[in-house]
């Protein structure tokens, strides 16, 4: 597996084959879409500009709920207030991370490319978000959970989920050699 490596000058390098590029772009795109659709467009344009205008309660889709969780474990009112103030910008930052991953992959077209500090942060977060969504879809809820494997699709998602763990490990190792 290529994924991430350290360049001779200490830089973080990335390389993904055609299939991996397509897969990562698809997954990052799906996470972006999921977030974009779930965060209600704010009525007030000014609020939208400053990033205020999230929903009132935990998103119903468990995958989105894991990406945009409650900030208070036992205080619904405080969670709602916090969500109203921060959810929209949190979702926007996650969408921006996913977009940066897609843009970088499409520009590289399978060739090796360098990740600056900003791109490293976007990638490490975007990979996490994709894995969180896959885990929610697979029903992985505890440490011992392997998730459902009742279909070809589920087994495939599990393979991708594990592959992304390996990809993230190579990124972490490249960032802190």
């Amino acid at each position, binding site marked *: 597996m290529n994924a991430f490596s350290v360049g001779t000058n200490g830089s973080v390098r990335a390389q993904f084959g055609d299939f991996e590029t397509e897969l990562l772009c698809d997954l990052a795109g799906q996470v972006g879409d999921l977030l974009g659709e779930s965060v209600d467009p704010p009525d007030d344009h000014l609020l939208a500009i400053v990033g205020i205008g999230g929903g009132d309660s935990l998103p119903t889709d468990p995958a989105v709920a*894991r*990406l*945009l*969780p*409650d*900030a*208070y*474990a*036992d205080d619904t009112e*405080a969670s709602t207030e*916090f969500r109203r103030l*921060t959810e929209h910008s*949190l979702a926007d*930052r*996650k969408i921006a991370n996913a977009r940066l991953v897609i843009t970088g992959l499409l520009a590289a077209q399978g060739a090796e490319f360098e990740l600056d500090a900003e791109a490293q942060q976007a990638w*490490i*977060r975007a990979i*996490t*978000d994709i*894995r*969180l969504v896959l*885990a929610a879809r697979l029903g*992985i*809820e*505890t*440490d011992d*959970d392997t998730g459902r494997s009742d279909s070809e699709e589920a087994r495939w998602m599990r393979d991708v989920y594990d592959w992304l*763990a390996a990809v*993230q*490990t190579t990124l*972490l190792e490249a*960032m*802190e050699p």
Partner: protein
Amino acid sequence: MSDTLERTELVEQQSLDTPWVTIVWNDPVNLMTYVSYVFRSYFGFAREKADELMMQVHENGRAVVASGAREEMERHVEAMHDFGLWATVSKDGDGKA
């Protein structure tokens, strides 16, 4: 001006009386190496402390990673959510921390 000062003092007083904490919860998804990395890179913890907190999260299901004023804890929690970690704000000493 004096109004602002009084309010600032009030906020400080409140945070002294009732410290708040940031709790990071265990999840089955995030890699232990990643959680430790987040603790080091965001909070600036040394590797030993970051690994210790990470193990606490893993084994006890949660760990208190910061304490202080409520607003500060909310910033930490939002940052943890940015990283994809599951974190919440709690009032210290209410039995949940």
